[in-house]
């Protein structure tokens, strides 16, 4: 399955049972390390792709914490998603440097190309479109990030070519 190469989650390769088992193992390791809930959530999101309520309940049990605490943490941090995200996440920086160098035009163009607004996922499930906190590459503004890859000095005209590399 060469087309799976870019997918960061392991969703298609394992069935649910295997995933839950893997998570349970990891939780056992982390349970005694103080304050490791956020690290466990990171791992769970990497395994399952997102953190729906069902999964939060499972984690709460495994970590011996009330569900309300787990949900409180999930909703507080923007990195955690409760609904499935697209296969790829596009993050556009709207820091000042990016803005000065034309970040807003990138957003407008992306909305046109993707047909969805910020915070939404395309109908085919390929892309989720988000704005990000600064990603620390201002020297190269404006930048966008697709999954872990940073694209620098992006121009609205270049966007279609960049997106075409993802499927």
């Amino acid at each position, binding site marked *: 399955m060469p087309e799976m190469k870019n997918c960061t989650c392991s969703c298609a390769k394992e069935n649910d049972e295997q995933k839950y088992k893997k998570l349970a193992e990891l939780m056992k390791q982390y349970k005694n390390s*103080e*304050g*490791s*809930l*956020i*690290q466990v*959530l*990171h791992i769970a999101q990497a395994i399952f792709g997102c953190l729906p309520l069902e999964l939060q309940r499972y984690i709460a049990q495994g970590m011996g914490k009330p569900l309300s*605490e787990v949900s*409180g*943490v999930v909703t*507080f*941090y*923007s*990195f*955690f998603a409760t609904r499935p995200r697209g296969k790829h996440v596009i993050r556009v*920086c709207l*820091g*000042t*440097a*990016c*803005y*000065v*160098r034309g970040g807003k035009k990138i957003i407008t163009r992306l909305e046109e190309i993707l047909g969805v607004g910020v915070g939404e996922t395309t109908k085919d499930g390929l892309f989720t479109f988000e704005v*990000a*906190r*600064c*990603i*620390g*590459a*201002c*020297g*190269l*503004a404006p*930048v966008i*990030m697709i999954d*872990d*890859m*940073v*694209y*620098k000095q992006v121009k609205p005209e270049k966007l279609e070519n960049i997106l075409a590399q993802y499927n």
Partner: protein
Amino acid sequence: MRIKNLEDLVKIKEEYNSKMAEYNYQILVCGGGGCVSSKCGEVKEALDRCLKGYGLSEKISVITTGCMGICALGPVVLIKPDETFYTKVTPEKIAEIVKSHIINGTILEKYTYYDKARQLYIPNINDIPFFKDQVKIALRNCGQIDYSSIEAYIAKDGYFAAAKALSKMSRQQVVEEIKKSGLRGRGGAGFPTGIKWEAGLKAISDQKYFVCNADEGDPGAFMDRSILEGDPHSVIEGMILGGYAVGANIGYIYVRAEYPIAVERLSTAIEEARRYGLLGKNLFSTDFEFELEIRIGAGAFVCGEETSLMASIEGRRGEPRQKPPFPFERGLFGKPTIINNVETLANIPPIIHKGAHWFSQFGTERSKGTKVFALAGNVVNTGLVEVPMGISLGDILFKIGDGIPQGKAFKAAQAGGPSGGCITKEFLNTPVDYENISKIGAIMGSGGLIVMNEDTCMVDTA
């Protein structure tokens, strides 16, 4: 191998240096975040292939470094010992460079730095205005060494300060040295580091913690990231020294989730330090013990603030709380905790190694040392610069930054992120230090400087 004392470090340093001296050339390829997105990986691959083709792989060492500072011209390559600096390198260009520079011994001028104002090429990195006026303390190794090699760090006197402090200095003496240096926190507030450490040392508890704040929240700033990616051991050594000074034996480095490369390089460095006996029990044959753990954030701006950050390390919602109690009284898990910023910590080893007196010769009366700035926006040389405190903003923007592109006029520079302020033309002569910058209505913040030209609408960016 387990390092037991200074002699062990000296031995590693000498071995590394003599190994390097055997190579005819060292080719340093920048692997900083900026150059990675400019595809420096392809340049490095082409370089390796090319050297292999000439049968030179054994004679020339190729080193991947952290950010060299001038990201807009990336990918950049530095060739030693002649210190020739090539910019905007591509796989095709590197093949030409190897042929001309390495095989024929002729510098390929047309791919070196071009000074537009003077209309000439400047091949030697030390003659380029961008580098010439900088003083590098926190960034001393960034772009200079192989970030993935603990030996390379040791060869630059790395961990010498830790060896000295743990075996020859009392905790109080380390605190005194930092106090005398005049170092102030680089995370924004500029609080004197030595005074904070003294409070940590005096706190009485069965357990204390030392935390490194690597959340780097200000948009426009990326110095902490560059230090973590380009010289992770300097932060680890800073934390060992801090932990020793205040009497903490567990450290946490809180890194934001948006920095996966920093997390990866830091984890590798921590493992390596542990393997060399520089983390764990009985450091430098003393009974001092120090353990270090990385905690990854999850994308919440407020977590850069120290009380939120501690809540987040505890695995809770990163909500700030009232002070007092201050972290040095009741911090992480209710225990005394000292928190310092990445750049602050990178300054610690050279201060202990070379002495407070050496450090305090740089800077102004009340702001000692240097500050790293991230130049961005409408300025020719965008990237990372480290300058002595007290230099004027005009010098940073026009001498080092080389002015505004396309001959446009300067309008303002935003300092200290969105919560900071804009510095306009009439203040270009202001010496940049904590006091003066706040006098003109801006703040030092963490060092983001975003330049705007005459066309930028300030109302929109605010």
